[in-house]
């Protein structure tokens, strides 16, 4: 590789790194409870070797009745040990994974696909660096992003194994690790590994020992997960979100309930509609219903990218017999399967590998189009205009609209409240957590509560005995220093107490009835009071000597 190529690659990595790390602790504004759980559990493992419930080095991390894949938490431990627990260190691993994904994109296309034109590799890396989906998912603590990075690393190694068979062993190890990174990868890794080996079986059958060893390695590393196969830890999330169950068919089957094999037609229809939706230009290129897995006014890709995507798909079709095209198409068509068997429409977290494949196809399409333009001046003008418009619209969607419109989803107002409780340590707080049931984890995170204090409360609730099996134990009844997270109107007779919540929790009439005095307000992004804190007045209420 020439110095010029290395320089351009470093420039692309710098741009990608900047877009992923710039103001990472401030945008998204706040922290969602899953991120707080990842960070705090890493902190707890670091200090005590146990998670917040007192479980030593769990295979899955229990989190508010659900279970998180463990790898992100464990890999965050060294980061937190060096730099401390903070929003930045919690998100750092995802951002770092995002930068590695850019590098892997270059390596996969350059070394893995062995496409001679270096500009395809550089364009692929650049498209990943500036794609909205890649930046967005790198800027939240997201297990799926780590899972994508590992899948791509395994993808690179497995393609390399076609020429260097020993790489298959390392790729099987990395693929096995990816299944501990995110739930969707448990399905995708197995599907991809088995499909790839089947597709290129003639290459691998010459090295039977390596093939068998790799398969054994991959499946033996799944043993800890298989041991939990019949527990809530392994399958609760899947049971909640799939549509394969009888009751779903009975509720939503409609006329198919009266048809022979109606359930299977129902499942096939559901699967196909969801699978197709992940390739739909509508979902990929325009604004979705705004939620935590998307930005306002922007979808996974810039709108203009639909044109090079079509060009890239045509090119892929033309060269479909080539090994690199086969492997890319294989990953592309397998990636949506884990998401397509769940109920949520277009759940982006579960299909990051698909977005990567689409990005590479877009890069191929961009070069196909640019090759048809002979004038260098025209090419540079088009590229410059598109870049300015794209990055400008991304800046507006993410750094402005997203910051204001999604701060409730990232609990910004509740975090301000928690900081208030830290400032007023001598006062007791009773915070309503009906809208954010796992609010205690934010308090534990921001106040860096000693994990032993949280673990003791869990032990008293017998959670450890049924850690993996019983997800129904109410594990939200936790107190953090001077804060409890349940409203008890009987406590309004206590002194030195502030009751806090939104207008649904504490109406003006209730405040009046209980003789509460407004102590503070916390505003939302539009400057309107969102949370209010009221101090109790037991004497005014007539509580007597309390």
């Amino acid at each position, binding site marked *: 590789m020439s110095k010029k190529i290395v320089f351009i690659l470093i420039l692309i990595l710098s741009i990608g790194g900047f877009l992923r790390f710039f103001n990472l602790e401030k945008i998204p504004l706040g922290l969602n409870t899953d991120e707080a759980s990842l960070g705090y559990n890493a902190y707890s493992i670091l200090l005590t070797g146990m998670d917040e419930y007192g479980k030593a080095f769990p295979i899955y991390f229990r989190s508010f009745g659900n279970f998180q894949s463990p790898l992100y938490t464990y890999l965050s431990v060294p980061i937190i040990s060096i730099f401390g627990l903070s929003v930045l260190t919690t998100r750092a691993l995802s951002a770092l994974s995002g930068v590695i994904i850019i590098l892997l994109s270059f390596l996969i296309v350059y070394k893995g696909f062995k496409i001679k034109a270096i500009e395809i590799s550089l364009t692929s890396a650049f498209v990943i660096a500036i794609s909205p989906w890649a930046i967005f998912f790198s800027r939240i603590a997201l297990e799926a992003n780590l899972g994508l990075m590992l899948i791509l690393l395994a993808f690179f190694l497995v393609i390399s194994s076609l020429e260097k068979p020993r790489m298959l062993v390392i790729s099987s190890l990395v693929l096995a690790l990816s299944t501990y990174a995110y739930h969707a990868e448990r399905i995708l890794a197995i599907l991809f590994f088995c499909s790839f080996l089947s597709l290129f079986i003639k290459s691998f059958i010459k090295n039977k020992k390596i093939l068998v060893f790799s398969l054994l390695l991959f499946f033996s590393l799944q043993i800890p997960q298989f041991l939990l196969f019949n527990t809530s830890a392994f399958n609760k999330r899947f049971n909640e979100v799939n549509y394969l169950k009888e009751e779903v068919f009975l509720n939503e089957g409609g006329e198919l309930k009266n048809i022979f094999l109606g359930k299977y037609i129902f499942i096939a229809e559901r699967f196909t509609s969801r699978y197709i939706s992940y390739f739909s*230009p509508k979902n990929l290129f325009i604004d979705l219903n705004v939620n935590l897995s998307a930005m306002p006014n922007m979808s996974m890709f810039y709108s203009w990218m639909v044109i090079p995507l079509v060009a890239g798909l045509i090119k892929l079709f033309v060269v479909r017999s080539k090994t690199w095209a086969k492997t890319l198409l294989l990953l592309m068509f397998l990636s949506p399967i884990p998401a397509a068997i769940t109920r949520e429409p277009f759940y982006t977290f579960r299909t990051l590998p698909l977005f990567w494949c689409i990005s590479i196809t877009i890069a191929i399409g961009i070069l196909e189009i640019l090759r048809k333009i002979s004038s260098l001046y025209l090419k540079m003008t088009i590229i410059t205009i598109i870049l300015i418009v794209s990055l400008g619209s991304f800046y507006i969607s993410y750094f402005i609209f997203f910051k204001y419109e999604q701060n409730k989803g990232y609990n910004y107002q509740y975090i301000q409240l928690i900081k208030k409780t830290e400032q007023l340590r001598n006062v007791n707080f009773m915070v309503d957590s009906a809208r954010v049931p796992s609010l205690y984890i934010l308090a534990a995170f921001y106040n860096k509560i000693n994990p032993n204090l949280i673990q003791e409360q869990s032990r008293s609730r017998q959670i450890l005995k049924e850690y993996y099996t019983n997800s129904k134990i109410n594990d939200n009844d936790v107190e953090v220093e001077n804060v409890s997270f349940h409203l008890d109107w009987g406590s309004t007779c206590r002194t030195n107490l502030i009751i806090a919540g939104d207008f649904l929790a504490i109406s003006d009439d209730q405040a009046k009835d209980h003789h509460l005095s407004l102590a503070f307000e916390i505003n939302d992004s539009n400057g309107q009071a969102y949370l209010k804190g009221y101090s109790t007045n037991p004497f005014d209420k007539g509580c007597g000597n309390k």
Partner: protein
Amino acid sequence: MFIALFLTILTSFWFWRIIDNNFILGILLVIDSFLIYKMIFLREETTRGLHISILSFFIIIFLIQLKAGYYWGIWVFSPTERIPFDNRHNYLSSDLGPLYQNKASTFFYTKMTYQLTKYNQNIFYNLDPNLYFFASHPLERQNVDEFNKYSPFVLPLFLIGIIGIFKTGAHFFAIAYGLVIIFASGFVQPNYISGPVLFFPVINSIIAKGLVVTFSFVKKRFKNSE
């Protein structure tokens, strides 16, 4: 081939809905389907007259649709759209300062952004395969009467037809026509009662092609096995 096209049209739910709402539009679309099929898949038989006919039909059908759905397509805010739009005006003003607080920027945002966004959305909604085969399921649109246009069982034929286009390539006029109907469809509201009818002839042609290819394949296999 034309039998395949005829079958495709008659068995689609969409055709009957169009006929029910506007009989003349339905007939025009059927004729247009045959013309489009000839243009895309029988390229050796295309003539200038065919191109002019297709263009004429396009203009008539587009005007019929535009008359019903133009105003609501890109010019009308619903209340749920208005509120975030106004809030974003404040966010931009607050964060961008003088970069936004000038005549050009505010004019662009208040007078053009909404229309451009709606236009963009309308185009991409019409490119959603689920709109045609699954009544937009699983992401049904608010305030839109989603209806089944084709049976989901026809989807494989559609995909085979698309591959057929990739294999044979497309005439320049066909590509241009495709782009024109895509951009034109953006001007019409998504909940137009008959749906995105400009795509009706094209999709029928592609499905019919898929049917022809499948039938040929089965016939060939049957002959070989004999």
